[in-house]
């Protein structure tokens, strides 16, 4: 019994962290129409940043600054934001493809750097020696996990409320205006590239926050955590949930994470032993089919965007 509950808490914590990430992506893609092909890099920057800043001293690589935890987490978010700033500055003035390619490239380079640069973050071994905050008070067991889950949940709610207000604000209307018709927005005297940059950085900082929480949860991060897989998963969550709708984003995160976990479990349990090697391939095919299928048959997602101003709607 306690085993099931503790598994559920574990599942819900991971799903909530991913939901925060999906919310960040939703601001970029759903609300602003910015394609982030390297979600995992910003997520990873948050995780690595938090652990390096907040961890204990390590031999052979950067880190061990033992920063007060909230500051470490903030540092991780800033790292993600800085990366977004550089990429955005270089690409947001150009046609859409460039952002997609550059962000994809960032993710490749980020993983590559983390894997190879031992002096930076431990290379393939990853960053260890991070002590989870308040561990002395709460211990390492079930209690800690429950407490951590509620913290994540509160942060998720806070991010959700923040984004809901942002989207309803004049700034949010501006974002949609730019997404729908850049020229018209520009003719209103707004500079679309600056506004898009703001949205892109904000979304990336939220991705960094999710990454930081993820790193905290496992008290460990390695290049295995920043593989492109995560990018695809987070997208699938957003597309299935409904781009443009924050509630859809959260819903999609839980749904897809549940489906992913369940399919992995089912494949490992019921697939013949020779096929076990191919579990990953099968899951990827499924994710690809989900993405393509949703785009073709239900591009608005399960919970569509509520505002009906979009040209997309009218063209269908």
């Amino acid at each position: 019994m306690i085993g099931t509950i503790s598994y559920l808490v574990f599942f819900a914590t991971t799903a909530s962290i991913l939901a925060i990430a999906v919310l960040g992506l939703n601001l970029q893609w759903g609300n602003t129409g910015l394609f982030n092909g390297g979600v995992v890099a910003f997520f990873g920057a948050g995780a690595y940043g938090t652990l390096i800043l907040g961890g204990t001293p390590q031999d052979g690589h950067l880190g061990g600054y033992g920063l007060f935890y909230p500051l470490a987490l903030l540092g991780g978010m800033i790292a993600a934001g800085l990366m977004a700033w550089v990429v955005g500055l270089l690409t947001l003035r150009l046609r859409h493809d460039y952002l997609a390619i550059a962000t994809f490239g960032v993710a490749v380079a980020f993983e590559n750097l983390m894997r190879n640069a031992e002096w930076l973050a431990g290379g393939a071994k990853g960053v260890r020696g991070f002590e989870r905050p308040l561990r002395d008070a709460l211990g390492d067991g079930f209690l800690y996990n429950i407490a951590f889950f509620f913290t994540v949940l509160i942060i998720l709610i806070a991010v959700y409320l923040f984004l809901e207000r942002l989207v309803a604000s004049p700034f949010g209307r501006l974002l949609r205006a730019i997404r729908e018709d850049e020229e018209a927005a520009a003719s209103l005297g707004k500079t679309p590239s600056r506004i898009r940059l703001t949205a892109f950085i904000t979304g990336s900082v939220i991705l960094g926050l999710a990454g930081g929480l993820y790193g905290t949860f496992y008290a460990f991060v390695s290049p295995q955590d920043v593989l492109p897989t995560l990018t695809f998963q987070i997208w699938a969550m957003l597309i299935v949930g409904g781009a443009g709708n924050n509630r859809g984003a959260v819903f999609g995160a839980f749904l897809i994470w549940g489906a992913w976990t369940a399919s992995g479990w089912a494949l490992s349990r019921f697939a013949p032993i020779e096929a076990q090697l191919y579990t990953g391939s099968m899951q990827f095919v499924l994710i690809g089919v989900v993405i393509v299928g949703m785009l073709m048959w239900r591009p608005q997602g399960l919970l569509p965007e509520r505002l009906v101003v979009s040209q997309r709607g009218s063209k269908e």
Partner: protein
Amino acid sequence: MIQNLIDGVLTGSYLSLGAIGLTLVMHILRFANFSHAELLSLGAYAALVFDALVTALVPVLAAKLGPLSLTYALLIAILISMVLTGISAVLIDRLVFKRVREKGWELSMVFASFGMALIIRNVIGLIFGLSPELYSKDIAFAMILSRDPLILVKPDQVFVLIAALALMFVLHLILSRTTFGYALRAVAENPSLAQVNGVNLARTVTAVWLIGGGLAAVAGVFYGLSHQVIPVMGRDLVLPIFAATIVGGIGSVYGAVLGGFIVGIAGNLALVVLPSGYTPSIPFMLILIVLMIRPHGLFGEARA
């Protein structure tokens, strides 16, 4: 150093072939096609299958061409693979991209292409297994061009370079000498004006996919000849090919050719100063440099 340069040129020859199709698709259909590199895998595996098939049916064709490890059977298989990969590219467009495009949401095509990349790559893995395959199990002996410094070139590599250059030359002739080529360039520059001048857009799109797919197939086989054929080759090639199109300027065929060689050479020269583990990051570095100093690439034009 010279060895790196030579290896870079050889890498460039298949990157260029891959980038040509990608740049055309990106320019004419206006989306970054992340599944283009999977056409290279598709072509490489199709050639593998037909090589085995032709060899089994007509054993005499298993003879090698001169000093090459390449057999007549493989040569025929490459031609078949070009056609099949071209047709696959057209089919993928009809079944997926065209439908998304017609919904009027251009940006979603990038998503669709990611999804297609995942599907193609992993279905190939499921069918052919995850371990690498080779076109020829014989060890190809390298020619020693010089002993000090030691410079080695395999006959296959020379063939790859010459064949790639020949294909590019044929494409150049088509683009610069035939009205079909003018029509392609016209559509790239101004689709609606091209239409008004009697160019059928749908047919041009089909032609672009056929050409892009055919060249991708050759590129995939050449990659396989130089390295090995693996299901994840698309994953490793997608960024270098994108880098080639950006360096050359999106939409420019000549830019893609030059960009491919630049990316190939840069990747190999980087080995002189950086550990080989960093090679996958080099294309991204090139993209950053180009975006900083010349965002529209060597031959590209600004286009919103």
